């Protein structure tokens, strides 16, 4: 057989054409036969007739063959394509391995970007997006009695009216959260429990894991001594023993029978109740004027939140007319339970998501730049392949395949980063943020990770490939890879850098603002002296301590014992310590006699032992502090803080003024202001001090004792050098009554640290993200400038040959690199004005557009960018002009 012509090229260029192929083959056959017959002496005409006749029905044969041929071709194309793709994968893999430093950098960058987004998304998915594990979670609502825009707990009478008079809810249930003394053999602890109406669990549609919940009968007074345990409490205290059902346990020294255990999925809120008992409000308790109840409801099918709210608005006015003393100025708010559960975290988490998205975008820009540089470096390879007949789609497919491989590797790295991040977040915030403990990498998160990584890789890999594959083969070959498109590519590159710098600046500015507010919060003087002070809470059982004097006497004995301990410098009692999470939940309304204007402002109340101000070192501003002589028989006195004094008697002397506290007891005597003390940051360093009125414990009526479960905090300031530990308080309680519980025991330093923990956490996370952004940006700038130098060797050589100095060359290079950095900074400053407005709610003690922060951050970026430019610039200045020119 003679040698084969380039049939394959024929196919490649025009694609297979089965009809033409069959036609050609038959024509050849007939022509050869005719030639042969003519050679045997036939005339052309006769030969043609003979050949056609021998062939038979040519049309039928042709049709059969065409069908067969096109089937063969299609099959060939498929296998060709697949094997070609396989080659692409192998080739792409080799390419990635050969340029492994770039590949590694790209994979790591992609991994960091994708992993950060994945981690935060995983958290958000678990905390915010996933529906609650209830039947019909959207129908569950919380109902609040609201005053001055602040949600408040509900009075029993109001709750009763809501339940009877409204129609929007299928169920309305109430919970009274209180602290119980849980006694085990030898020790007592304070545990938070909930007294609930029998329809509480049906509201959520959750059945018990073991046993039963309460029936309507259990919920009628007198209060039944039955208890349902939470899954957590059951595990912690009874090691998950199923035989716990029917067992008697002691709460407040009274026996309760365990009738059920709730499933783990019901433990939604951190620090929530550990067990539940029936509420069973008695007739007397129904008359309480103070709010004690949290109210949960389940909307009727077809009733919207808005309709329920409208009905409750009417209800609020009805109740205001019916029970004016309880409801004046109050409205009712119906809120989504899920939203209330998550509260502020939703906002903060989405801010975090925005922050990590910026890191992701920076990472994307970096990867794009890396791949762009690589695509440019491969112009020669592409040109040669194009010249050898590779089509543009074929080249694109090659790039696509490589990007896909890169994206998959990036996703794998991202999963690792995200996994680490989520674990870290669970450790740091698991106890405080609802449902965070359930965060993990589930299929949704995985899909998002994969999608982001592959999209980023494809986008950043394909755009340069589109450009590169459009190469003008001849021109590029002649110019050795430097074509006119290079200029456009530099422009893209600079744009990427500007975007990166802008994003990094916004991130760092946000982190800077948060750091500054964390520092500002840390520098806030809390209003007391925290060093060497420990405080813990105890409560007296109601049996044996039925009257106010009995309670006071018992506490005074505890206080004496505590003060007598070696190492204790000063001791005191108080109903609330600053920065503790427990509040009495009282919105006192002081009725001021002179001037007789009613003041609606909410005021906190504390009752304290006379030694409290000295022990906490809260400065006295005016008048006197309490003395042991301030008792039931003597003149009723109060002490107010500066905020309250300023609010009630602006510009006048507070000491000597008189007020009533009608919320406190039915027969509210006139109380005289004995002194004014300095403000204390009771509710957090970043929250301004509330108005507070202090009462001496010996003058407290019985009602507040009931509300607070007859509990007080023991406060001890120890001598320097003595460790202020919980053992101190425990041993005192042991000496007085071995069954007195101790709870919420922390030093004041610990409370301070805890109160700014979340601010610190967010500023820490944002700082880490900002530094990642800075690092990635620096790497990006370095890469671009280094690439610029490597491509401009000849030009730099010429400059030097023409007499440019080394420092001149360095300046030239640095200027090239810094141009996009400066425009990025300008854009970033503009953007951070917008962002800081959003951050406003998280900031304390720093202006949103704090110029100092912006300047510092911009300076930091310029410094880092300069270093990133300087290194390649120094390289450039060492170029030997002769070698550079000759190499071209």
């Amino acid at each position, binding site marked *: *057989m003679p040698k084969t012509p380039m049939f394959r090229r024929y196919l490649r260029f025009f694609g297979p054409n089965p009809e033409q192929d069959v036609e050609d*083959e038959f024509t*050849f056959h007939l022509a*050869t036969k005719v030639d042969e017959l003519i050679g045997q002496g036939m005339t052309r005409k006769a030969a043609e007739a003979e050949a056609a006749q021998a062939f038979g029905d040519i049309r039928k*044969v042709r049709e059969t063959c065409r069908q*067969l041929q096109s089937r*063969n071709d299609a099959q060939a194309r498929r296998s060709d394509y697949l094997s070609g793709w396989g080659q692409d994968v192998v080739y792409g893999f080799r390419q990635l391995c050969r340029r492994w430093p770039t590949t590694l950098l790209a994979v790591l960058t992609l991994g960091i970007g994708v992993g950060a987004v994945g981690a935060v998304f995983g958290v958000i998915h678990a905390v915010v997006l996933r529906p609650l594990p209830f039947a019909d979670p959207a129908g569950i609502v919380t109902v609040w009695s609201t005053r001055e825009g602040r949600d408040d707990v509900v009075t029993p009478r109001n709750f009763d009216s809501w339940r009877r008079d409204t129609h929007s809810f299928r169920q309305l249930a109430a919970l009274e959260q209180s602290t119980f003394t849980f006694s085990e053999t030898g020790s007592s602890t304070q545990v938070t429990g909930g007294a609930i109406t029998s329809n509480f669990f049906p509201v959520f549609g959750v059945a018990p894991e073991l046993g039963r919940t309460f029936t309507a009968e259990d919920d009628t007074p007198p209060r039944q001594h039955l208890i349902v345990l939470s899954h957590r409490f059951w595990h912690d205290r009874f090691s998950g023993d199923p035989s716990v059902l029917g067992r008697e346990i002691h709460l407040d020294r009274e026996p309760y029978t365990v009738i059920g255990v709730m499933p783990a999925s019901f433990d939604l809120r951190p620090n929530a109740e550990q067990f539940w008992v029936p509420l069973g409000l008695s007739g007397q308790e129904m008359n309480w004027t103070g709010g004690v109840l949290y109210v949960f409801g389940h909307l009727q099918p077809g009733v919207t939140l808005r309709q329920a709210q409208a009905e409750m608005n009417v209800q609020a006015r009805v109740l205001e007319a019916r029970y004016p003393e309880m409801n004046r100025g109050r409205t009712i708010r119906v809120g989504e339970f899920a939203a209330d559960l998550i509260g502020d975290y939703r906002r903060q988490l989405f801010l975090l998501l925005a922050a990590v998205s910026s890191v992701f975008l920076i990472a994307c820009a970096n990867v794009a730049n890396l791949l762009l540089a690589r695509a440019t470096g491969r112009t020669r390879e592409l040109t040669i392949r194009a010249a050898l007949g590779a089509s543009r789609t074929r080249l694109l497919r090659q790039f696509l395949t490589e990007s896909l491989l890169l994206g998959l590797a990036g996703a794998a790295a991202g999963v690792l980063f995200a996994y680490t991040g989520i674990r870290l977040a669970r450790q740091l915030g698991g106890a405080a943020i609802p449902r965070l403990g359930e965060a993990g990498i589930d299929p949704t998160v995985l899909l998002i990770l994969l999608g982001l990584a592959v999209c980023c890789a494809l986008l950043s890999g394909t755009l340069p490939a589109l450009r590169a594959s459009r190469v003008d083969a001849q021109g590029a070959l002649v110019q050795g890879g430097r074509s006119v498109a290079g200029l456009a590519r530099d422009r893209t590159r600079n744009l990427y850098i500007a975007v990166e710098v802008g994003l990094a600046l916004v991130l760092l500015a946000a982190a800077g603002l948060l750091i500054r507010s964390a520092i500002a919060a840390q520098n806030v003087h809390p209003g007391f002296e925290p060093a060497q002070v420990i405080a813990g809470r105890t409560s007296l059982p109601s049996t044996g301590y039925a009257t106010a004097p009995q309670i006071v006497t018992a506490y005074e004995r505890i206080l004496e014992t505590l003060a007598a301990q070696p190492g204790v410098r000063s001791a005191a009692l108080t109903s609330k310590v600053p920065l503790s999470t427990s509040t009495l939940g009282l919105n006192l309304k002081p009725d001021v006699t002179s001037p007789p204007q009613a003041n609606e402002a909410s005021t906190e109340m504390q009752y304290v032992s006379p030694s409290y101000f000295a022990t906490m070192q809260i400065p006295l501003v005016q008048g006197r502090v309490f003395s042991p002589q301030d008792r039931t028989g003597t003149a009723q006195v109060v002490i107010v803080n500066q905020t309250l004094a300023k609010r009630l008697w602006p510009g006048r002397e507070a000491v000597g003024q008189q007020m009533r506290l009608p919320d406190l007891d039915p027969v509210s005597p006139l109380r005289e202001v004995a002194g004014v003390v300095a403000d204390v940051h009771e509710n957090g360093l970043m929250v301004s001090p509330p108005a507070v009125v202090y009462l001496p414990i010996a003058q407290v009526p019985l009602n507040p004792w009931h509300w607070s479960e007859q509990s007080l905090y023991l406060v001890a300031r120890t001598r320097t050098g003595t460790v202020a530990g919980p053992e101190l308080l425990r041993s005192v309680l042991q000496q007085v009554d071995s069954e007195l519980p101790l709870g919420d025991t922390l030093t004041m330093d610990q409370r301070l640290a805890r109160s700014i923990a979340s601010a610190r956490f967010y500023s820490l996370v944002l700082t880490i993200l900002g530094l990642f952004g800075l690092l990635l940006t620096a790497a990006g700038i370095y890469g671009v400038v280094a690439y610029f130098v490597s491509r401009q060797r000849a030009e730099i050589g010429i400059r030097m040959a023409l007499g440019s100095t080394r420092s001149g060359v360095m300046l030239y290079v640095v200027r090239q690199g810094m141009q996009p950095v400066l425009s990025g900074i300008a854009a970033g400053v503009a953007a951070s004005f917008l962002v800081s407005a959003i951050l406003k709610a998280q900031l304390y003690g720093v202006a949103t557009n704090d110029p100092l922060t912006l300047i510092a951050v911009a300076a930091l970026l310029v410094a880092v960018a300069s270093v990133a430019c300087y290194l390649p610039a120094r390289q450039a200045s060492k170029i030997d002009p002769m070698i550079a020119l000759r190499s071209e």
Partner: protein
Amino acid sequence: MKQTELDIIRGTLDLLILKTLSWGPLHGYAIVSAIRQQTDHALLVEEGALYPSLYRMEAKKWIVAEWGLSENNRRAKYYNLTPEGRQRLHAEVKTWHSYTEAVTKVLQATQRPAPENA
């Protein structure tokens, strides 16, 4: 068409083509000529049957086609045996021999055989 030429028995055409190609690549016309020559013009391969047969065997990957130049400098499609085709040829030849042997035995028999399970 001369009446002396024999029609090819159905099924044996593939075998003949495979055997013919075992000497090397050929185009369709050359295959017809080769079989005619080998059989001293006794066997006639119908073109109308040849080409579908070739295309089918190509689909079965027994043969591959490639365009080339003919002796008279025309573009022609050459067929060549694949390794599978060669294996197929061996198998078919074996079957053919046992088949003809069996047929021959029947035809050469001199008397009716005795019943087997008598």
